[in-house]
C-alpha cells in the first residue's frame, strides 16, 4: 500500500478550518465578554448637576472596557486551547505538535481579529444607543473616522494576539505541571510585594508600561510581534517534547 504524503501546510490548513468549526465555545465566550464589556460601558460614569434653570447630565462612554475584556478573553483562550479536551480533539485526526500549534496560532489570530473588529465596532453601538435611545448630544470632535477605525482595530488586534500568546505559553507551562497554576500568580504577587518593600517601581507595572506607554507605532508593533513570536516558539519547543492522549 502506498503511503500518503501530506504536507505540513496542507495539514495546518485543514486543521485551521476544523478549528474554526470546532472551537465554537471560544466565540460564545468572546461575545459574552464583549457584551459584558458593553454593559460596563453603558453603565459608565454619569455626572449630573442642576442649577435653578439648567440641568446637565454628562455620560462618559468608552469602549476601552470592551477592548480590555477582549484582551482578557485572549489570555483565557490561549490557556484553554491547550487543555486536554482540545488537544485530544486535535489528535483524533492527522496532526503533529507543529501543525497543531500552527493551526492554533492561526485560529487565535483569526478570532483575535474578529474580537478586535467587534470591540471597535461596539463603539457604534454605544453611539447608536446614545443618539437614538438616550437622546443625548454627543460631544465629540469627530466620529471615529475610517482611518482611525482601521488603525485602532490593528492595534487592538496586536494587544489581543499578544495576550493569546502569553496565555498560550502559560497554558503550555500548566500542561507540564499543574503547579504553574499556583506558581505564576504567586511569582507575580511575590514580585509586587518585593518591589513594594524595596520601594521600586513594580516589575509588573514596568511590563505594562513597556507596551502601553510605547508611543511609536513601529516600536509597538515590533514589541508585540516579537513577544508573541517568542511565546509561541517557546511553547512549541516545550510541546514538541510532550506526549498526548495519555
Amino acid at each position, binding site marked *: *500500500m502506498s*503511503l*500518503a*504524503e*501530506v504536507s*505540513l501546510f496542507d*495539514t495546518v490548513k*485543514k486543521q485551521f*478550518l*476544523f478549528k474554526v*468549526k*470546532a*472551537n*465554537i*465555545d471560544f466565540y460564545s465566550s468572546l461575545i459574552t465578554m464583549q457584551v459584558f464589556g458593553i454593559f460596563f460601558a453603558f453603565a459608565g460614569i454619569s455626572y449630573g448637576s442642576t442649577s435653578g434653570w439648567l440641568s446637565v447630565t454628562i455620560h462618559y462612554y468608552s469602549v476601552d472596557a470592551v477592548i480590555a475584556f477582549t484582551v482578557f478573553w485572549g489570555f483565557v483562550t490561549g490557556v484553554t486551547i491547550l487543555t486536554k*479536551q482540545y488537544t*485530544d*480533539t486535535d*489528535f*483524533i*485526526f*492527522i*496532526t*503533529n*505538535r*507543529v*501543525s497543531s500549534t500552527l493551526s492554533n496560532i492561526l485560529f487565535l489570530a483569526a478570532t483575535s481579529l474578529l474580537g478586535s473588529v467587534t470591540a471597535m465596532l461596539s463603539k457604534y453601538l454605544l453611539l447608536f444607543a446614545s443618539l437614538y435611545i438616550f437622546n443625548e448630544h454627543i460631544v465629540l470632535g469627530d466620529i471615529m473616522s475610517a482611518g482611525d477605525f482601521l488603525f485602532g482595530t490593528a492595534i487592538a488586534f496586536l494587544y489581543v494576539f499578544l495576550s493569546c500568546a502569553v496565555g498560550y505559553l502559560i497554558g503550555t507551562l500548566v500542561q507540564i505541571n499543574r503547579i504553574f497554576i499556583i506558581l505564576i500568580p504567586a511569582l507575580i504577587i511575590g514580585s509586587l510585594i518585593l518591589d513594594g518593600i524595596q520601594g521600586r517601581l513594580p516589575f509588573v507595572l514596568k511590563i505594562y508600561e513597556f507596551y502601553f506607554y510605547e508611543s511609536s507605532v513601529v516600536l509597538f508593533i515590533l514589541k508585540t510581534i516579537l513577544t508573541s513570536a517568542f511565546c509561541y516558539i517557546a511553547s512549541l519547543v516545550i510541546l*514538541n*517534547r510532550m*506526549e*498526548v*492522549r*495519555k
Partner: protein
Amino acid sequence: MSVIECRNLSKKFFGGKTALNNLTVSIEENKITGLIGRNGAGKTTLLKIIAGFLKESSGEVTVFSERPYNSLKVSANSIFIDDQMTYTPALQLYDLLIEADRFYPNFNMTLAKGLFEYFAFDPKYYHKRLSKGQKSTFNAIIGIAARCPLTIFDEPTTGMDEGVRKDFYRALLKDYIEFPRTIIISSHHLNEIEDLIEDILLIKDGRTYLHLPITEFKEYAIAIKGKKDTVLDWIKGKEIFYEQYAGVDTMYAVVKNDYTEKEFEKARMAGLEISSVRSNDLCVYLTNKSRGGIDDVFSGSQPV
C-alpha cells in the same frame, strides 16, 4: 516488509511504573495482528507509542521506517481507535464523518455512510451523548472507513453488544479483503478475534511473549488428562503452562506441543486423553503469573 519495528523498546512512566520492558517485535505489512495481554501488560502503551502519541524511554521504534513520535507522516498514515476518543462537542456525528473524510486521504465516505446508516445513527446527534457501545461503534466506523495503511484498534468492542461485535468484525474483514492494510487489534478476548487475525502477538509484563501465526498458536500447546503419575511421567522435562488436579489422582496439564505423532499414539495407548486447548484458555494460562491460577491463592491461605 515490516511496517513496525520495535527493538528493546522500553517505556517508564513518570513515577517509575514500567509499562514496556525491552520489547522487541516486528509487524509485517498488510497483516491483521491480534495484540493480546492481561490488563496492565503494556498493550495500550505499545500502541500509543506506535501511533506517535507517547515517547519511548529507551530502545528503538520505527513505523514506516520513521520514528513515530510527533511524526506527521505516521499520523497521516495511521489511525488509533480506542474508547477514550474525544471528539469536539461542537460537531454532530455526521459532521465528524465529513471532517474525517477531509483529513484522511483514503477515507471511504460511501462505506462510512453505509455503516452509519446500518447502525442507525442519527446524523444530528452528538458523540458525547452516545452510550458506551454506540461510541465504540461510531469510532469503529471511522477506523474502518479511514482505510489508513496502519489501523490500530485498542479494545474496539468495549460496550458493544454481541450482534454489533460480530457485525464490526465482519465489516472490518470485508473491507480488509477489499483494501488490505496493516491492522492491529488489541483485546483480552482472543476468542472474539481469533478467526479474524493472521498473527498473534502476546505480551506479558511489557515484553513480547509470543509472536506467531494464529494457526500455529492453535497447535502451540496440548492438554493431557489422565492418572496423575502417568501424566507427570509423560510431561517430564516439558514446558508446563497449566496444571490442575481433580478427584483422587486425576491430573490435567497443558504443555508445549513438541511431541511427535508416534508419541501421541503411545500416550493414548497409555490411557491418556489428549486434546487441543482453546486459544483463549491458552492465552490465560500463558499470561498467568503462576501456573495454577486463582486456586493457588486459596490453597496457599489455609486458615490456621
